[in-house]
C-alpha cells in the first residue's frame, strides 16, 4: 500500500485561446486528453489516479464558454460559468431561480468560486447539485468537436454514474433553457450531513404553474437517489392537471418514493431515504405553492 502526498502523474497543460484550437487539441489527443475547468472534481481524480491523461486542456479562457446571456425566450449559460456567478446572477434568479438556488448551496464559497456548471454536469455525479435543477428546466447542452456540433438535453449528456456521454474529443460549450415565465413556481431542497462542504444525501428540484387552480407543466427531478439523475415522469403525470389538495400531495409523495425504489432497488439506505424524500417533496411542493400564492 502506498500513500501519495502531492504526486500527480506528469501531463502536458494547454490553455487554448480559441474554441477551434481547443477542439483540435482534443481531437489530436485521441482520447488521451482531459478537459479541465475549475478542476475541483478532476484534480481529485488525478491525485487518486482514476484519470491518467497525457494532456489537460484548460477551457477557462475560451470566450464561447463564458457569460450568462439572455436572448428572446432563452437563457444561455457558458460551460465555465462558476456556481458563484450563477447564484449571484439576477437573470438566473429571475428566469431560472431553481438553478440559482441549487448553485448557491454547493460546497463552500471557495468551491463555488472555482467549480463550473459544465464541470458539474460532465462529472456526472449522481449527487451533483445543479443536475436536478437543469433537468426540470429542460436544459440543453451545446456540444462541439472539430467534426460536429450537436444540441443534447442534459439527461442525454449523462451515461452512468461518473461517466458523461461526451466523446473524448467533445466539449460542452453552453447550457440553454427556456426562460421560466414569471408565474412559474419552483423549489430546490437539499439535505446533507453538515451545513457546508458535504455531498448531498438527497436533493430535489421541481417546478410547475397553476392553471385554473390545477397544477400544470409539472416537472420533478430528485438528486442523489438515482444512479443517473433523471426526471420522474410517473410523478409528473400523476400530478398534471390536478388540484393540489393535501391528500393528493401525500399520494404524490408516496409515488415519489415508489418510483425511486423501482429504479434504484431496495438498498440499505432505502429505509432512511424513502420517507425522507417524501417529506422533502412535500416541503418543496408547499414552498412552491406559497410562491404561487404570492405571485398572484
Amino acid at each position, binding site marked *: 500500500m502506498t*500513500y501519495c502526498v502531492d*504526486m500527480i502523474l506528469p501531463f502536458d497543460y494547454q490553455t487554448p485561446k480559441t474554441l477551434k484550437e481547443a477542439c483540435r487539441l482534443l481531437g489530436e489527443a485521441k482520447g488521451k486528453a482531459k478537459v479541465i475547468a475549475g478542476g475541483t472534481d478532476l484534480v481529485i481524480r488525478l491525485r487518486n489516479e482514476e484519470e491518467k491523461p497525457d494532456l489537460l486542456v484548460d477551457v477557462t479562457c475560451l470566450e464561447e464558454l463564458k457569460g450568462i446571456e439572455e436572448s428572446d425566450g432563452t437563457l444561455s449559460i457558458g460551460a465555465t460559468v462558476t456556481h458563484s456567478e450563477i447564484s449571484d446572477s439576477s437573470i438566473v434568479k429571475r428566469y431560472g431561480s431553481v438553478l440559482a438556488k441549487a448553485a448557491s448551496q454547493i460546497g463552500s464559497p471557495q468551491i463555488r468560486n472555482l467549480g463550473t456548471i459544465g464541470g458539474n454536469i460532465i462529472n456526472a455525479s449522481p449527487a451533483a447539485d445543479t443536475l436536478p435543477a437543469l433537468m426540470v428546466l429542460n436544459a440543453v447542452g451545446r456540444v462541439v468537436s472539430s467534426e460536429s456540433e450537436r444540441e443534447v438535453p442534459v439527461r442525454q449528456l449523462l451515461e452512468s454514474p461518473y461517466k458523461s456521454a461526451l466523446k473524448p474529443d467533445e466539449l460542452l460549450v453552453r447550457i440553454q433553457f427556456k426562460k421560466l415565465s414569471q408565474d412559474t413556481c419552483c423549489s430546490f431542497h437539499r439535505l446533507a450531513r*453538515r*451545513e457546508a462542504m458535504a455531498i448531498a444525501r438527497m436533493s430535489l428540484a421541481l417546478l410547475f404553474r397553476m392553471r385554473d387552480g390545477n397544477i400544470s407543466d409539472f416537472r420533478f427531478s430528485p438528486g442523489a437517489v438515482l444512479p443517473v439523475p433523471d426526471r420522474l415522469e410517473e410523478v409528473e403525470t400523476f400530478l398534471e392537471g390536478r388540484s393540489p389538495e393535501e391528500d393528493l400531495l401525500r399520494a404524490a409523495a408516496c409515488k415519489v418514493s415508489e418510483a425511486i425504489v423501482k429504479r434504484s432497488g431496495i438498498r440499505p439506505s432505502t429505509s*432512511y431515504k424513502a420517507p425522507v424524500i417524501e*417529506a422533502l417533496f412535500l*416541503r418543496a411542493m408547499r414552498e412552491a405553492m406559497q410562491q404561487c400564492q404570492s405571485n398572484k
Partner: protein
Amino acid sequence: MPIKQIGIDIPKVDANNKVRGVAQFGADLSVSSPLHLKVVRSTKHHAKVIKIKTEEASRVKGVERIFTAQDIPGKHLVGTITKDQPVLVSDRVRYVGDPLAIVAAQTIEAAEEAVKKVEILYEDLPSVHTPEEALKPHAPLIHDHGNLLIEFQVVKGDVVAGFKEAEVIVEELYETTWVDHAYMEPDAGIGFMDEEGRVTVVCPSQNVHYDQKEVAGVLSLPLEKVRIIQCATGGGFGGRLDITVQCLLALATYHLKRPVRIVYSREEVFDVISKRHPLTIRYKSGAKKDGRLTAIEVEILGDTGAYASYGATVGIRSAVHATGPYQVPNIKVRSRMAYTNNPWSGAMRGFGVPQIAFAHESQMDLLAKAIQMDPIDFRLKNALTIGSETATGQSLMASVGIGESLRRVKTWRDQLISVSCDSPRPHLRRGIGIGSMWYGIGNTGIANPSTAQIEILPNGEVRLLTGVADIGQGSDTVLLQMASEALGVPIQEIKLIRADTAFTTDAGATSASRQTYISGNAVLQAIRHLKQEILREAASFLQEDEADLFVEDGEVRHRKKRCISLPIREIAKRTQKRFKGEGSYDPETRKLDPQTGQGAPYATYAFATHLAEVEVDTETGKVKVIRVVACHDVGKAIHPQNIVGQIIGGVAMGVGFALMEEYIPGETTSFVNYLIPTSKDVPEVIPILVEDREPSGPFGAKGVGEPALIPSAPAILNAIADAIGERIYHLPANLERVLEAVKKSKRGGKTWQPC
C-alpha cells in the same frame, strides 16, 4: 503584591508567527538535500509475514536504501505503557497499515515508485474485529499474552443493597465508535545528525522526552545521543502522544548519516494514527424518589485495536469517572479492553471520559424523568461538594465547582425556557439538554512529575526552560505568564526554550489536561529556588543580612532600607554569575488498589456543565445545535481568552462527536468521507468561567483542555431526547439514527417547554 500577569488576555506568544505564516510545521521544515522517506504498509488485517522482497524496489532509480526490521539495532517494540507496537514489523502484521519497510530515495516520486515494488509474502491468519469476539475462549490470539489488555474494577459499598434501596432503576446500553483526532497538520518531520553528532528528529509531538527515550531504545543509543525537537504542532488531541514518525526518521538518519524527510498524506494519517476507543457501556443506576442516587453498576468493554497504546489508561480512567461528578454510595464498575485486528485506539481528548460521560449523563436524565424531578435539581442533589467522597474513596478537600456550574447554567436555562418555544414549522422541534462532567487532572494514580528550570545569565538574560510541548493549547503563554508574575520580569524579557531535549528536561506529556497545573507548579518551584539563590548572592554582594532581603517586581529589596533595590538581572550582570532555579512537581496521589480501584488517583479535578439547545428536523433527522452554554470550573483562569478558545474548540469537537464523526475501518479514507463540523455547524457558544481556587494549583489553576469537550455531546444528546421524546444510545446521532428515534418516539418527552 498586586497580581499583574495572571488572569489577563495577553496575545498568545505563538500567535504572531502563526498568523504571519512564519511558524514552521512539520512539512515546512527545510534541511539541505534530504532523502525522502516512504513507508511500506500492511494490506492485511492479520497475517504472518513470510518474506519482504525489496530487490526490485531497490533498483528503482533514486532509491538509496530500504530499511526493514532487520536494520533496527535496538528494541523493536514501542508503546507508552505496554511496549507491543513494532517500529517495523518482521513477523506478523496485525492491522491494515502496519509498517513493514521504509524506502529512502532522492525524490518523493522514486520513493513512491519503490514502495509499490516492495513485495510482501503473507500467510493469512484469521482476524478478529470485535472485542466480544476477541474475548471468546478460542479466539485467534493477536498478541501472545492474550487478547485481554486490561481488566479493571472500581468497587465500593454494596450494590445489591443499593439497588434494593432504589425506588427507580434505569439500565441501558450505550455505544460509541472510532473517532479521528482530525488534527489540522498531517504528521511530518525531518531527521539529521546535529553538530554534536546526535541523531536529531524535528517533528510535531506532545512529548519530546518520551520520544527521546523510545528512539534511544530503538537505536540502542544513550539518551544524550538522541535529540528530539518539537516544531510548531498543528494540533494533537492525544494523537501525537504515541510515536508517529519519530522512529522512522531516526532509524534512517542513524544509518544514512544524512538528512531525511517524511510527510504523511492525510489518507495515511487516517489509516495509521490512533483513534478514540469505541466503548460499549452497559449502565445500570438506581435512585430514591427524593432524588438520591443509591447505586451504579457499569460494564465497559473497549476495542483497543491491534496495539495497546493508551488502552489501559482509557480502561481505568473511564471506570474511575463512571459515576460522573456525583456522590454514589454503592458502586461496581468493571472495565475491559480487548485487542482486535482493527485500527489501534489510543489517547484522544478525555481518555474514555467523553464516552462514559455520554452514558452517565443519559442515565441522569432518564432517572430524573423517572422520578419527575428537574434534571438540574436532580444533578445538584447528587453533585460532589467539598467533603464528598468519590467513587474511589477519595475525599475532596477543595475546589469542587460542579454545584456552582450547575447553578450558573440553571439560571441560563430558566431564561431560555421563558423565551424559547417550538418553531412555527411543525417538523422542527426544539430541545434543551444538560451535560455535566468531572475530570481528574494528570495521570491516574501514578507518578507524573514535571520539571522546569529558570535561569538568569551573566548578561542579564532570563530564560525559562521547559520540556512542555505547546500543541496550540497555549502552554507557552501560560507558563510565561506564571514565570513573569512570580519573578516580576516582563514576559517579553523572558526567553522561552521549550521542548528540545538538548536543553530541556522531562515535563511529561501534554495530555490529561495536566500542563498548566503540573508544569505550572514546576515553573513556580524553579522560581522559588532561583530567588533563594539570588538572595544569597545579593546578600553577600550588598553586604546585607539575607533575611532582610526579598524579591519583588523583579528587584531585590530590603525590608527596612527603602533605598536598597536592585534589579535581579543587575545582580547577575554585576556578579557575572549565572543563576539557575530547578523546579519539579508531582501531584500528590494515592495508587488505586488493583482489586477494588480504591485510592486517590488525582490531586485535583476539573468540573463543568454544558447546556445545549438544539433544533431537530423530525422529518429528516437533521439536528442543528443552536447554542451551547459552557460553564467550567477552572480553579483560576490564568489566560481567560485562551480558556474560552479551548471551550469553543471543545464544543466544536463535541458537536462532531455527538452528531457526525464516525471512522469506519476500511471505508473512511480522508475528509471526503470523515465529516467534522464546519464553521456553519458550530453553534453560538456562551462560555462561563467559575473560579473555585485549587489550593495546590499554580495561582489556584487546574486544567481545561479535555474538560472543554467532555460535556458537549452528552448535553446535545439530552437535548435531542428532550426535543423528540426518544433517546439515542449510539453515537454519532446521525441522520439515520435520529430519524429512527423519531419514529419510535411517542412524543412524550417534553419536560421543560411551556409553549
